């Protein structure tokens, strides 16, 4: 039971650390001297993104980013479909990332 409590405590502590660092990261970014103030419409945590930015953020959360030239457009279409299922992306996000990767392979 003691170990259970220790394990639970460690898990909660890890979650708290993750949240804390996330908040620190956000606050440090926003406090960067000279940083351009974003318009209110795009200042949210998930602003509308271009394909490159969305690809880097969503795919980079789990693994290193592989070069767009590593696969052709048809292959990227299949890969991003599968990644949509794994990562819980919306259809619009899937299309945005696929379009970017297809354009980047040319």
């Amino acid at each position, binding site marked *: 039971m003691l170990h259970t409590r220790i394990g639970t405590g460690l898990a909660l502590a890890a979650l708290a650390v993750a949240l804390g660092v996330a908040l620190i990261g956000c606050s440090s970014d926003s406090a960067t001297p000279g940083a351009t103030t974003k318009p209110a419409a795009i200042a949210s945590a998930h602003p509308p993104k271009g394909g490159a930015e969305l690809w880097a953020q969503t795919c980079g959360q789990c*693994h*290193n980013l592989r070069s767009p030239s590593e696969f052709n457009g*048809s292959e990227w279409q299949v890969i991003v479909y599968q990644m949509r*299922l794994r990562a*819980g992306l919306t259809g619009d996000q899937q299309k945005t990332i696929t379009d970017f990767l297809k354009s980047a392979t040319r």
Partner: protein
Amino acid sequence: MKAMIVGTGVLALALAGGATMAQDASPAGNYVTREEYQKLKGQLDTMKQEMDTLRKERAAQQVQLVQANKATQDRMQQEELDKIIDDMQKDIRENRSLLSGLRSGTTRLLIAGDVSAGFTARRGENSTFEATFAPLFLWQINERILFEGALDIAVERNGVGENETATDLTIANISYLVNNNLAITAGLFVVPFSTYHLHFDPPWINKFPDDPLAFGGNAIAPSSEIGVMGSGGILIGGTRLTYALYVTNGPSVITDDPNAAGSLDFDNFTDLNNDKAVGGRLGFLPIPELEVGYSLMRASVNPESFTKNVNALLMAGDANYVKELDWLRGTITLRAEWVWSNVEDVTYHPAGSSALRFDNDRNGGYATVAYRPTKADSKVIRNLEFAVRYDSLDVSRKAPDGDFEQRWTFGIDYWLAPNAVIKFAYQVDDKDVGEDQNAFLIQFGLGI
């Protein structure tokens, strides 16, 4: 210029004509003196010199004009040539893309997956080399339908001490995209119970050579299940919500093995009691860099022949944070997952053993911190990653396999490519009941 030359010539002829007339007039006494003759001759010589100069200038100008015309023609020809080359290159690219798309195995069917080769030296065991191969087949039928299939192939020693190639079907499903926010998957799929097997276990993604205890050989969390699932994502304001709900055959509880009674068998894909497992996961991304999730699964896990219905309830919490931070001059990864498993208390009567009854609560998980100096000046330094993991598994001491094991694993990875990594790790093991098994591990992981 031409008019000037003609004018000068006319003047010269007029003067010459005048001189002749003067000589012709000499017999009549109206003669030209020697002085006048010399003067006229001097003027004629001067004009001749001027004409020669003008002829030379004109010739030089004509040469320049010809050269300029030639340069213009060359430039125009070069531009036309460049345009033709650009068009040809564009055609080549388009044809190459078309041909690549038509090539067998790539139009709709993509073969991916991963490979690993490793070495483990664990206290109390023979050190050994290991190799695994996990091909992944993706076949997109059309814009909405995808087939996904995967195998785990490994060389291992079986129960009677013989080496054999173990081949496990880990994924075989069909997905259909219903709309922007929903996909339906049916078949054998990776269960979104927590995220380790969903995202992090391939050897080119996992930062360590082995799996955490809760997700490894004696796992207390499912990996693949047969059933049907609805999943997707929803953008809400500035955040994203991910969800998955599924019904599967579910795990089964081991009842007849005296060494493992009470443990859940997640590799049994048939339903033993006609009561399906139900589960799901909710994920939330308040910012793009952070996802937190909660998973739940409820299942009846007893074999049909078992005397009593046995229910199991599994829960898990997970968090994943990845961000490149300027003040750290690198990328930090914070990752934690914890699983709680409760199997209803029942009395087991395994063959060759006395009756067993125990509090069947288990929990385990891991917390990882990794740092990669992605902003370092040196390429060698940028390719290094330092990782530390704490993991543990707590099983009731009254269970046949009861123990509390915790490990600290210290790893250094070197990324040869985004999908190729060499991992070195030292593991400090601590068990309450069994012998501690510190280990040294090396693994080369490659994503195909």
